[in-house]
């Protein structure tokens, strides 16, 4: 749907993006994760035509595009990090304004506004001034405003930043629905749980470079592994070696903890437990999270 080919961006001699190449497929929710200053917002600004890349190209549906071109801009939607709407306008007025700014006539704008109010769950609050909304409601309104002109592609810059769990969950649901409606979503986030939960694919951006791309499962598999944490009676190391050797698992000691890693640990768990019977004081299985994988990756790359 949308691709970046070798995109560089330099500011005042500093390189914010370096050879970024990505391809985002139609209908997928693509997550861009990375530490602060990694270049996520710069990438969103380039993709939304607010900034020109120093080098590189953007392809939209296979064709090279100028991101500032109105024809391209009309096919993208933007949801900024902070909810962007006029506090002294009602939700309905904010949406109506956006519809007019996108050139819609009244007969087209009114049903679209009603549709979005319903879609975002704001119909009950449609005639309240936005300044009285909670942050979660504001972010839903902001998302609806980015959707007014029905763009096939939506860029979202850390949309759940500062939201409470309930509001975050509500917004995730909306984003997931977008994908169901065939929209392509690019979302930047610090929240690994969010990326793991809603994104079909993820790219890790560090110091302006794309370091890894893949599904959350692939990234987790690539950068981390499930682990079994054991506490054993003294002198049980021999039994542990024997069990692990038989099952094709590796073990190491971390303080008073024995950590077992390897393939299909859940399936091998009964055999491990029976092999260590009598010596086993405590057993804890930990599935690797995206955050674990990301932190591990960051440690590996020296961040």
């Amino acid at each position: 749907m949308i691709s970046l080919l070798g995109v560089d961006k330099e500011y005042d001699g500093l390189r914010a993006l370096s050879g970024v190449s990505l391809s985002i497929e139609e209908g997928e929710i693509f997550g861009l994760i990375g530490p602060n200053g990694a270049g996520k917002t710069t990438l969103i600004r380039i993709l939304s035509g607010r900034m020109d890349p120093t080098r590189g190209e953007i392809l939209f549906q296979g064709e090279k595009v100028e991101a500032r071109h109105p024809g391209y801009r009309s096919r993208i939607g933007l949801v900024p990090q902070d909810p962007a709407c006029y506090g002294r306008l009602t939700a309905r007025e904010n949406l109506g304004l956006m519809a007019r700014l996108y050139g819609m006539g009244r007969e087209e704008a009114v049903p679209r506004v009603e549709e979005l109010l319903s879609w975002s769950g704001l119909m009950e609050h449609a005639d309240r001034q936005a300044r009285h909304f909670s942050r979660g409601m504001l972010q839903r309104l902001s998302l609806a405003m980015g959707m007014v002109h029905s763009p096939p592609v939506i860029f979202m810059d850390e949309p759940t930043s500062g939201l409470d769990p309930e509001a975050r969950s509500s917004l995730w649901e909306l984003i997931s629905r977008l994908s169901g409606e065939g929209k392509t979503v690019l979302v930047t986030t610090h929240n690994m749980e969010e990326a793991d939960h809603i994104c079909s694919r993820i790219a890790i951006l560090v110091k302006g470079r794309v370091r890894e791309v893949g599904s959350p499962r692939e990234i987790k598999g690539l950068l981390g592994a499930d682990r079994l944490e054991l506490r054993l009676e003294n002198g049980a190391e021999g039994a542990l070696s024997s069990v692990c050797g038989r099952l094709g698992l590796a073990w190491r000691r971390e303080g008073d903890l024995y950590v077992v890693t390897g393939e299909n640990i859940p399936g091998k768990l009964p055999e491990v437990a029976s092999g260590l019977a009598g010596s086993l004081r405590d057993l804890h299985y930990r599935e690797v999270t995206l955050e674990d994988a990301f932190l591990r990756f960051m440690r590996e790359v020296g961040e």
Partner: protein
Amino acid sequence: MRGWTALFIKDGKLILRNRLLLVVLVIYPFLIMGIMGAAFYDAGRPVPLGLVDLDRAEEGGIAWLGATTDEVPALERRFRYRAVRVEEFGSCEEAEEALSTGRASMVLAIMTDGESPRWLGADLTADQVELTLEDVREASSMRDYSSFQEALEPRGGERNDLVLALREKEYPHIGESIWLDKESYDASGLIMRFSSGVAEVTEYESEEEAREALARGGIDAVIVLPRAFVYRLKALNETAIVPVIIDQSNLVKAEFAETSIRGFLSRVKDGVAEEKMRAVVAGLYVLVTGGDFFGTEVVGLGQIRENLETIKGALADRPELAELVEGGIDLATTVIEDIEEAADYLKGTALPVELDISSTAGRTLSAKDAAVPALIALSILWTGVLCGAILMVVEDEEGMRERIALTETGPLALVGSKLLLATVVVFAQSAVMLVLAVAAFGVFASNALLALLVIAAASFSCIGIGLVIAAFARQVAAAVIMSVLVSFPLIFMTGAVYPLSQMPSFMQWLAHAVPLTYAIDALSGVMLRGEGLADVAGRVGILLAFGVGLLAAGSMLARRRDAG
């Protein structure tokens, strides 16, 4: 106490590390005083004045004089009595023709309410002309005019009941000179000499021409020297009334001009009075000492008293006669003492010059009249700049700039829509101020409708400044501070605080780069100087051009900012 110290130090650091606050608190006083210093560094520049000398007689020219008096019938009777034959004319043209062809040497136009003037003409001798003028002068105060129309409808003065016309060349005592410090001066020469260093005087052919220069702002006031000005200065029993037209639409400028004119005319008065007194006192002493008393050889009272003393001595044996002579000596002594006292008294009196100040508005303007245009213009600047800047920066604060940039609406529409809305708001606010000033406080506005046009153009241009400021601010608070930083110095550069004519040339140039200068001048013009659309069209055009230019600059800056 530790808490106080810690907070004190913390706030000091915050100020030092906040560039905007630092500018406001530390650099701003230097900026303001720098502007004031630049404005005042050449203080005491000569005030530009215009001079019209009606004493310069023109061949074939006609002198018009107007008088407001209840004694018109008596004056007419005396005129008819003096003339051998009185001719009646049907119109001003006929009367002028009679004067120019010599059929009449003097014409009287007698005005009656609601009726056409009655024209009488006669061929009088020079003495008769002078006597007739004296008659009128005794009955009322007379003013000189350059045309009948002007005498018919005097600006800022009472309606004349009687208008006299005579050939300029035959106007008694016209073009006379006066000797001061061994040099001879005519009327304008006198003004030029005494205004030197105080005013920069430009002489104009007619009052109309001088008024035009005043309206254009080339001069700050016009002095109209009446006919026979020098004669009246010299005459012992005359006061020379000098009409002065001042642009009172700018209080500060008007005050400077009036003070300057009063200053150098006071020097003229002192110089002439001194000469006059010297002559009179010398003459009075001649009465005491004997000799030439203004052309007549007289025996001095001192000599008479001496002679009486001698006679009294010779009458020692006739005490009754000696007593009579003694009475004569006492009388002579008293008269001599009175003459000497009168001479001393005269030295301290004599006021030969009186100013008759009128405004370009055709009426005397009060301080509130003159203050309102500048107040409205300043209000337009403050609210316009603030309104323009805040409306733009709100887009940033609401986070909408980025979003709008993606729509079909470009930066020109974003900035332009704010310019139009703010113009409507500021215009409405200023219009309310104008209506309140006129309706509730009786402020003079000669053309309120045209004032509204100027207000609209001024609002348009001042809001543009705010739109440009907005390109450098991200929060409303910053925009407000920057608006104040920019607006406040502009006020000092417009002539609202100190007359432009008193500022150095480069400050005058700078003033013309500030829309407020044109706004104040145009608003004063239409409200106070009676200027029409054609007069202010140029300044309104400049204000609109400023608005368009600032809109373009604001849009360009907004585009650059949106582009990151």
